[in-house]
């Protein structure tokens, strides 16, 4: 029944862009959540409640997407018909892959170190730095309509985001 033809940016009332004013996003999200929350419709008919759940779910997914630098980039490309999430990826720069393998080896060796936390922090900082650079590249390339280069940046971000998850998991295990 729900016909939401708007994309997340339009729905939330922000320009379609990689750069998102996070405080404006928070404000607008809050206004819309207050309007669309199913609690507002709890005393009305089932149809209103169902619609509210659908709209609110769309909104909350939109908020989560626009908040996350990776999801946002993937979403912008998907609006242009580029699917970055499927496994069948185009080749990624071999230099980058080499670097990834080295980073992973470093991660694997951390538990054996005498002071694992120092190395863990160093790795964390390094990976975050790389991610930041990739986000900046993406923003520029996307703006310049250099979509294939932008797509490659997103694929690299995906690799690094997975590494971030693994770093956090190792941290949990060490704290464990």
């Amino acid at each position, binding site marked *: 029944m729900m016909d939401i033809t708007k994309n997340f940016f339009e*729905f939330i009332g922000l320009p379609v862009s990689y750069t998102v004013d996070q405080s404006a996003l928070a404000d607008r999200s*809050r206004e819309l959540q207050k*309007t669309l*929350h199913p609690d507002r419709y709890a005393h009305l*008919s089932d149809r209103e409640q169902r*619609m509210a759940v659908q709209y609110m*779910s769309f909104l909350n997914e939109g908020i989560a997407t626009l908040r996350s630098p990776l999801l946002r980039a993937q979403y912008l490309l998907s609006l242009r018909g580029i699917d970055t999430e499927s496994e069948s990826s185009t080749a990624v720069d071999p230099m980058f892959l080499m670097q990834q393998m080295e980073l992973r080896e470093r991660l694997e060796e951390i538990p054996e170190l005498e002071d694992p936390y120092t190395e863990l922090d160093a790795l964390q900082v390094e990976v975050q730095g790389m991610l930041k650079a990739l986000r900046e590249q993406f923003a520029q390339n996307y703006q310049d309509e250099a979509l294939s280069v932008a797509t490659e940046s997103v694929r690299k971000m995906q690799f690094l985001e997975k590494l971030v998850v693994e770093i956090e998991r190792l941290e949990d295990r060490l704290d464990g």
Partner: protein
Amino acid sequence: MALLQIAEPGQSEAPHQHKLAVGIDLGTTNSLVASVKSGEAVTIPDIDGQHLLPSVVRYMPCGNHLVGAEARTYAASDPDNTIISVKRLMGRGVSDLKTLGDEAPYQFDINDGGMPYIKTAAGNKSPVQVSADILKTLVARAEEALGGELTGAVITVPAYFDDAQRQATKDAATLANIKVLRLLNEPTAAAVAYGLDQGKEGIIAVYDLGGGTFDISILRLNKGVFEVLSTGGDSALGGDDLDLALAEWIAQQLGVDIDGNSVSRYLMEKSKQAKEVLSGADEATIDLEIKGHKQSITVSRAQFDELVSPLVKRTIRACRRALKDASVEAEDVLEVVMVGGSTRVPLVREEVKQFFAREPHIKIDPDCVVAVGASIQADVLAGNKPDSGMLLLDVIPLSLGIETMGGLTEKIIHRNTSIPVARAQEFTTYQDGQTAMAIHVVQGERELVSDCRSLARFVLRGIPPMAAGAAKIRVTYQVDADGLLGVHAKELTSGVESSIQVKPSYGLGDVEIAEMLKASYLNAAEDKDVRALREQQVDADRLIVSLQDALVADGKQLLSADEYAALESEIEKLIELRNGSDLIAIERGVAALSKASDEYASRRMDHSIQKALQGHSIDELGESE
């Protein structure tokens, strides 16, 4: 306007009549029901004036059962048939029972689904049924006191309850024939009772020392949204332990043997009374009669404090851990709310005050505060306060994920995501010619599936044979506003799909619930057809009233004159049907009017979105109330 004449004399509700809605605190030791009456939220007592209903059910060979204080008197003499602390079993499987240790002394009957049934004299009872019996008692009490049928209830659950435990709670309500307006987190309810949702933004700590458990929750309040940052506590430490410490001391002083069951129960009861006296006085005198021998002993506040101090310190340590988990400092905490009868103990208040460096909120009776908060939300959700600006936005407490290769978890919806929410992810087959895919839904933060809670498994069948990696399976997780999950899987190239409302692996199936409900109708000797007709009429009324309200509010603005007139005549048609007694005709009429007004409903939704985006003026009005 003639349209408003839809109430049947003496039968159905008039539009905008005050709806009866309650808040229910379904507790481990005690349960309560509260409602907003004449603008004030109050707990409802039973005919003897007791507000607390002990969460105890005793099943008897004749098939009847007792609930509450009377049932509790049999806890020692008839332990197999007297079910206490059933909340600990909600949403739990057979494998979880071992971890409960000696907590659950009952005889269990293990069924195929792995759900534990408790063997009682009145037959096998699931924890959901036992909870439903407690809920029914509370609802009967409320309907008696309020003088009418309830529209619905807000039921509270601990913040750390996972999907299985929440679903089990909702199933219990369904079984008790209660419409659940919302499942609400207990600490959030306590904060609402104090009106904290209206006030400042910041960190709120809810310190809940119940009879048998201690819970500490750290919440963040941001623009009316309560987010659970962390929860902690000790499931084996409660107010009863304070009583026990005193009872042991008395036994030691008097040289009595505490091992004898009846003596220890007696001493516990006396100690509990002394604890309550000491909350207001500097000393308490305890008169005892043990084996015909009368004795008296006096305990001072200082003596009592010394006895319970190690226990109180343990709760403070749990508070420290919860703050650490939430990554906040004690001085960041803006408000502290006290819940649970034992927070009346002066030492508890003192230690909490010192630790958080601020006065805790104690104005509302700590036994009632959760139910009171729930009733305030129930009143809003029932539609009694159309101008209320109150909105509780909730987040999911634990991430929802899916099992991937090698027994690893892939998160689909991360913890602390606002709900309701839907999120889809694509997967593929890993073998050539694979025609089915098993989907295992899990909840938790850990990397290994075996460390997370298994919520459900289902299989998507009928995938056309393809090369490995060629199939595209889109798995969608949809979480509703109560935090309950539905999962849908679809193979995109062929369109084959499958979905389930996630039922905990050890919950009741929909069929089981329907059958139990049917049985209960039969027992109640209520004519099923009459009931069905009434429910259908209520459905029709809701649709009619909400459309009429909508037309008054913005019908002229959003509809052309022709559309307006057409809709009015459709409404008239349903009113006519609704006043008749043809169940099927009313059902069709509701469907027809829904369809006729779908476009209008969408326009209204879009219109409110536009208004929300245009500025904050509407909302600021709401908040200044």
